[in-house]
């Protein structure tokens, strides 16, 4: 049957299970927008294409499906770039669709022509330029498959305008033709055996659980493994939720702002079991002092990550769920009581301890605000964050028991991610209340999406941790630039009025005793709500590994508690 390219496009999108797309129209993609009416797909009109990409990302991370963002050619497409890079760094499966000038004009600097496949080449897992309608069906199938399988990532499809309007025979492709793309699944048995032997022999093992645990849905396998071998579990920022925070074997978050006892355990380990993580510089600290006495086993789906930053003894390239499933049949029950007790002794100044020792001076502290949000939401909300101090505090204080609850830009550290990713998450869970914790700086980068939230009635609760500073940069200035606060103080708009201008109910909170009522107000009010928390201006995220220092060499809170905290 003959169909127009744009119709074929939507036909294929629907077959991929697409129910919602985040986009912005423009000349080169108008035929696709126009053809949408015939299909059961909801289009969320964003206010800036960056928002569309982050929404698709938030949707993907919380739904387990592929998120879709759409934009027109030229500036529409380049506005997606930050969002695509963010998804790339965090291996988030999104498909971005951009209009392109008609194929006959390509290369001629036509109006709004830009080389979008060229621009996005290094920040996509793969990209396609479609010049003919008969390519659309194959490309859409391949794009979704590539985005979701193996190590997930963003895929971009650039479609020439003439391909969108040309009629062609449509037959849904049953087979994919990707001779160069077969993601690894199973690791070789001999290597699994070597890993099992190392595990058996280890006295001080630590599991490093990363984003791969969530993406490969290996939570049960991880838990079984940890419990059977009695191995403590440290998590990366994106691995949080992969193992329950309240579990006795959980060490919480590792790395630059991880718990001291967690980092210290890693440094003193004799075996590191890296499960779906990539030894980013934010979790290793100085490389030549990293876990010097530990043997390393690395389960990883992307072979190019193996030995990239840290040389390992046993690489197991494959899908984590499959590999751990196999490994779980080979391991023996372990007893590591001594090791676990030793780690417990290091648990003296935990971040939890920090807030309990805050003076009761009437000041509003960010850390206790976030701790309250955790308590009041029973620790069971999807929480997205922006980037900065509040992000680290959310990772520290919001105790994630389950996967896919924390949505945050880890690898790229993209300010402006918080609000749009929360809106995206809401479309994945329209029956749920989504929280986003944002800084006063980053919020302003994508605050225009308040309009999107309002227009769609998204149940997103926005907690602005308003310290009137670009806080994380200010913290570095305090530590490493002798408090020269260049370009970090913020003169902010009135966020309450701003929200109200968008018809979004809002409240300002300046006193500790207003926190709980405000959270309650947010939870009781349907749709988007903004809370503007005026917190202490110069708080610091402790503990901290200064860049270039060894992982255990952390700046700790100066006033240390005396006794370990019973938890």
């Amino acid at each position, binding site marked *: 049957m003959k169909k127009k390219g744009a119709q074929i496009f939507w036909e294929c999108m629907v077959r991929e299970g697409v129910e919602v797309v985040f986009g912005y129209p423009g000349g080169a993609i108008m035929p696709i927008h126009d053809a949408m009416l015939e299909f059961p797909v909801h289009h969320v009109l964003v206010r800036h294409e960056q928002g569309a990409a982050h929404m698709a990302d938030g949707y993907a991370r919380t739904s387990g499906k592929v998120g879709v963002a759409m934009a027109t050619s030229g500036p529409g497409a380049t506005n997606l770039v930050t969002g695509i890079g963010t998804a790339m760094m965090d291996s988030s499966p999104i498909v971005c669709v951009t209009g392109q000038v008609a194929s006959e004009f390509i290369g001629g600097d036509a109006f709004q022509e830009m080389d979008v496949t060229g621009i996005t080449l*290094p920040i996509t897992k793969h990209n396609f330029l479609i010049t003919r309608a008969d390519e659309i069906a194959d490309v859409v199938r391949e794009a979704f498959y590539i985005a979701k399988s193996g190590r997930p990532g963003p895929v971009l499809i650039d479609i020439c305008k003439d391909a969108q309007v040309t009629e062609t025979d449509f037959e849904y492709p049953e087979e994919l033709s990707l001779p160069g793309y*077969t993601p690894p699944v199973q690791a070789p048995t001999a290597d699994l055996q070597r890993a099992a032997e190392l595990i058996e022999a280890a006295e001080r093992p630590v599991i490093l659980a990363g984003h791969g645990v969530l993406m490969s849905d290996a939570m049960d396998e991880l838990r079984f493994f940890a419990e059977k071998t009695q191995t403590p579990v440290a998590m990366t920022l994106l691995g949080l939720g992969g193992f329950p925070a309240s579990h006795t074997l959980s060490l919480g978050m590792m790395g630059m702002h991880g718990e001291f006892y967690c980092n210290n355990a890693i440094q003193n380990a004799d075996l590191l079991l890296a499960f779906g993580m990539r030894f980013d510089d934010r979790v290793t600290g100085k490389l030549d002092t990293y876990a010097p006495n530990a043997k390393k086993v690395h389960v990883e789906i992307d072979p*190019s990550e193996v030995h990239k930053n840290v040389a390992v003894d046993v690489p197991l390239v494959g899908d984590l769920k499959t590999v751990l499933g196999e490994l779980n049949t080979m391991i023996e029950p372990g007893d590591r009581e001594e090791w676990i007790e030793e780690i417990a002794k290091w648990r003296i100044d935990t971040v939890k301890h920090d807030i309990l020792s805050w003076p009761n001076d009437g000041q509003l502290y960010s850390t206790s605000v976030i701790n309250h949000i955790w308590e009041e939401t029973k620790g069971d909300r999807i929480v997205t964050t922006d980037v900065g101090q509040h992000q680290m505090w959310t990772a520290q204080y919001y105790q994630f028991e389950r996967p896919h609850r924390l949505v945050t830009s880890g690898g790229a550290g993209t300010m402006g991610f918080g609000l749009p990713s929360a809106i995206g998450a809401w479309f994945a869970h329209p029956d749920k209340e989504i929280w986003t914790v944002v800084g006063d700086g980053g919020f302003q980068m994508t605050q225009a999406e308040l309009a999107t939230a309002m227009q769609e009635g998204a149940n997103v609760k926005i907690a602005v941790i308003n310290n009137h500073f670009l806080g994380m940069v200010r913290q570095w200035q305090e530590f490493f630039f002798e408090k020269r606060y260049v370009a970090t103080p913020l003169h902010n708009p009135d966020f309450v009025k701003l929200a109200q201008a968008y018809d979004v109910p809002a409240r300002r909170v300046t006193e500790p005793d207003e926190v709980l009522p405000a959270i309650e107000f947010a939870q009781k009010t349907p749709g988007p709500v903004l809370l503007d928390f005026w917190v202490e201006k110069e708080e610091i995220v402790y503990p901290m590994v200064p860049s270039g220092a060894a992982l255990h060499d952390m700046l700790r809170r100066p006033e240390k508690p005396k006794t370990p905290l019973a938890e």
Partner: protein
Amino acid sequence: MNQNLLIAKVENKPGVLNRVASLFRRRNFNIESLNVGHSETPDVSRMTIAMDASQVDVKLVEANLYKLVNVIDVQDVSNHPNITRDLALIKVTANAEQRAEIANLVQLFRAKVVDVAAGSVIVEVTGTLDKVEALINLLRPMGVKEIVRTGQIAMLRGDGIGTRHTPGANGNKQSNNKEEERK
């Protein structure tokens, strides 16, 4: 120079060379030469990539190449019996009497003079990297005006296959395992 030679089979699609080149630039892989052309299979192009072994980790290059969706297979042929060839055209300043000297050299190297003009000749030489470089070095004192080279191409002798360092890449192949060799 200790050299690493990789043979990569890639889908013959627009932009693939750009993807490979972009990857090398982004990952800071310095390469000596990159040659690309048709292979025995219509939709597959073949690349020969030469790298200075002291500068680049060939395993990392191989693993990264596999990240490209259009890369079908990569083999390291450096330490396997192979034939490698580089072709160069060298334009050398030459008046009538220098021509004889050049002709002598060219003969020793089993090269050819393929063009003779009033003030210069073009020499064509084919051979291993070492041979081509040696001739160029001997011609330099006479005044080399232009050089163009194809970069190295390589083929393994007999039924040999190269080393595959990246187990798991593109479908769980194990390194150097003959059974799992892909077509």
